[in-house]
């Protein structure tokens, strides 16, 4: 019984998210359009991310979201009209900034692990060499066979 509880809550969350999305589409269609377009990289990344923690999706979403807040504020200042949303979306800098931020976040998620892993491996290699040297010294000193 306990194994089914997380699955049930996950299903509930999906339903709630769907309900929120539906409500957003019904009552704030321009906002929904703006968010859908501006957060397109995040949505795509979420769909493509097979990792369990969805960390990369979160990173891309955070980056996209950071550059979606400004256009969203302008849309709401324009009383959340559809033409204002289209006008904002037709402004290349707005969409490009959000998508660019998402792309940079994605790129960073690809490059940073390599750099960090390489750094850590180098550090561990040095430590392993130091330990191996100590091991060799002890073996030679005390005639301890491998």
């Amino acid at each position, binding site marked *: 019984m306990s194994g089914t509880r997380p699955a049930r809550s996950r299903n509930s969350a999906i339903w709630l998210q769907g309900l929120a999305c539906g409500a957003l589409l019904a009552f704030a269609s321009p906002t929904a359009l703006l968010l859908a377009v501006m957060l397109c990289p995040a949505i795509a990344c979420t769909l493509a991310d097979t990792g369990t923690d969805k960390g990369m999706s979160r990173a891309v979403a955070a980056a996209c979201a950071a550059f979606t807040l400004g256009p969203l504020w302008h849309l709401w200042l324009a009383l959340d009209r559809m033409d204002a949303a289209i006008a904002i979306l037709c402004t290349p800098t707005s969409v490009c900034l959000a998508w660019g931020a998402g792309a940079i976040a994605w790129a*960073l998620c690809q490059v940073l692990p390599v750099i960090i892993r390489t750094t850590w491996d180098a550090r561990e290699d040095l430590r392993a060499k130091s330990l191996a040297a100590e091991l060799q010294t002890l073996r030679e000193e005390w005639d301890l066979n491998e």
Partner: protein
Amino acid sequence: MPDEDGLIATHYRIDPTTPAPQLEGGHIAYMVIDPRDPTQKLMAVLTRNDLPARPRITLARTGVPVPYAVLPIEYGPGRDLAGKPGWFVVCDALPGPAIGIGRVWREGDLIACLLQPAAAALAALQARGLTHRAINPNNVFATAPRHPVTLGPFWAAPPACHQPAVFEPPYMARCLPQGRGDGKIADDVYALGVTMLAMATGRMPLADQDEAAATRLKLELGSYTALTTDVPLSPLIADLLRGMLAEDPEHRPSPQLLMKPEQARARRVAARPPRRAQLAISVGGINAWSARELAHAMGLRPERAFPLLRGGEVERWLRRHLGDPQLGMRLEDVIRQTEGDVPDENRLQSLLVMRCVAAIDPLGPLVWHGMAVQPDGLGGALVGAPAAVNVMIEEIITSEAAGQFLSANLRIEKEFPVLEDQRSWRQWLAARGPAGGLKRLMYGMNPMLACASPLLAGRPVIRVSDLLTALDEAAATADRARPPIDTHIAAFVAARGEATVTAGLRQIGSFAGTAERMVVLRLFGQLQARLQPGPLRGLASWLVACAFANVEDWRSQKTRAGLQEKVAKAAAAGDIGAIALLVDDAASREADEAGAAAAAARVRQLEEAIAGIARDAPRRADAARRVSTEIVTGLGLIAGLGAVMRLALY
């Protein structure tokens, strides 16, 4: 060991210009000069490594001089003319050549020049508790004919070792030459009597008989009759010889009496002639007519005598044909007692024959499987003896036959310290390992025997202190793959060394193991410390080369290297004790073992850590990915926060 300058016993120099007289027994003599008193005429006799000098030699040096005999002045190491080391006995030079056999001596010369001087010498020896046991014409010396004689050297070999059998009483003649024991002064009187007879006739008595036949003839006829039949003798000489050649040593005149021949002649002991049977008893083909002949035959043919004894034939013969029922009863007691004492059938034959022979002939020697020996000559008989004799002597000692022999023939036990000694003999024989067994017994019973180890390459070693220096010298040419100790050296050290030093030798079975070699190293170190022979560089290097100072079992290479360096330095300094201390340091060994255990634990930790580093690579990659996304997410959030703040300010 001898001085490098070749002086004998640190004082005496060989005089190569003066020839020394020939000595019997293969002993070589040199004339020597004492630089402290060059006028003294001295001689040095080279002892043989294979024959032990008589242990009581030092007694001869004390007290007033002994007339008409050459006694040791010094006993010590030296080098012969060829530079070969040896042990020498320094004594007064002999007055001239040996009297030899050839010239017929007149009665007056026999008395004045032979009997009286020799008797005086024997009396002086007797006063010191010594016997000569080497009186024969080839060992009696005189300046010139008709001059008083001097008895020759007698201390460089076991008693009567080189003595022809005819000069010995029958009970001594039967014994192994080296197993005749010290005997009594009466045995010297007997030898002097035979010598007088030889000089009176100018020929060797019983020269046409071999030794066994001569002994048998003496037993059959009595010594006097056997030796003097058809020999013309003056009445005085005949009377003297009758007493001197008496079968029972108690019946022979004392040396003091012989110095006054007229009194000695007048003292006649009425010895009862031995009973002779009407019918002989045959023991293994030897016909016996008297009890002594029977004992002799039984000693020669023990395997044939045994069934005769157990079947009662001997007892019946003693009662019926010899007419000695008392002896028969005594024999019956001995047989019954022996059969009760010895359940082992194999040992019964030897012990029964030995006890019966001793009961029948109280003068006879100890007989064992056909071998005859005196109880105090057992040690001498061991030296250089063939394996069969060694086995027999081993049996005699393990059976405590010497004590049983003395009690069976009713001799006074205190005449021989055998009963006290035989417990030690058994302990030596029973001792396990290289320092025990027959070799230990041989060196223990012969305190003047040189160590016969081949490792010494012929160097004479009488004392333990000489052993160290001899091994040190031998190290230069020795095969260093072999250890500088063998069973001879181990037994020699165990016999000569102090108990506290040699205790470890009794606990090892060989020289192969590390612990055993440590015992040997410790022993040499203690001997060097105690005897102070100086640096022993050769021996120390030899011990190190043979892994006696083994540091390989030390766990720490650093400690090993340090120890090897220190051991090499100690070996170069010739300090075996220091080597032993370095290698045998219990505290260092414990620290080494503890260090090895700690190192092993640390090695396990390191191996685990290194394996963990390799094993954790995927985990690190995953962590790197997670950290990266967190960083990027953080950057996004910061950017978002910046955007919110900008909008708020806008």
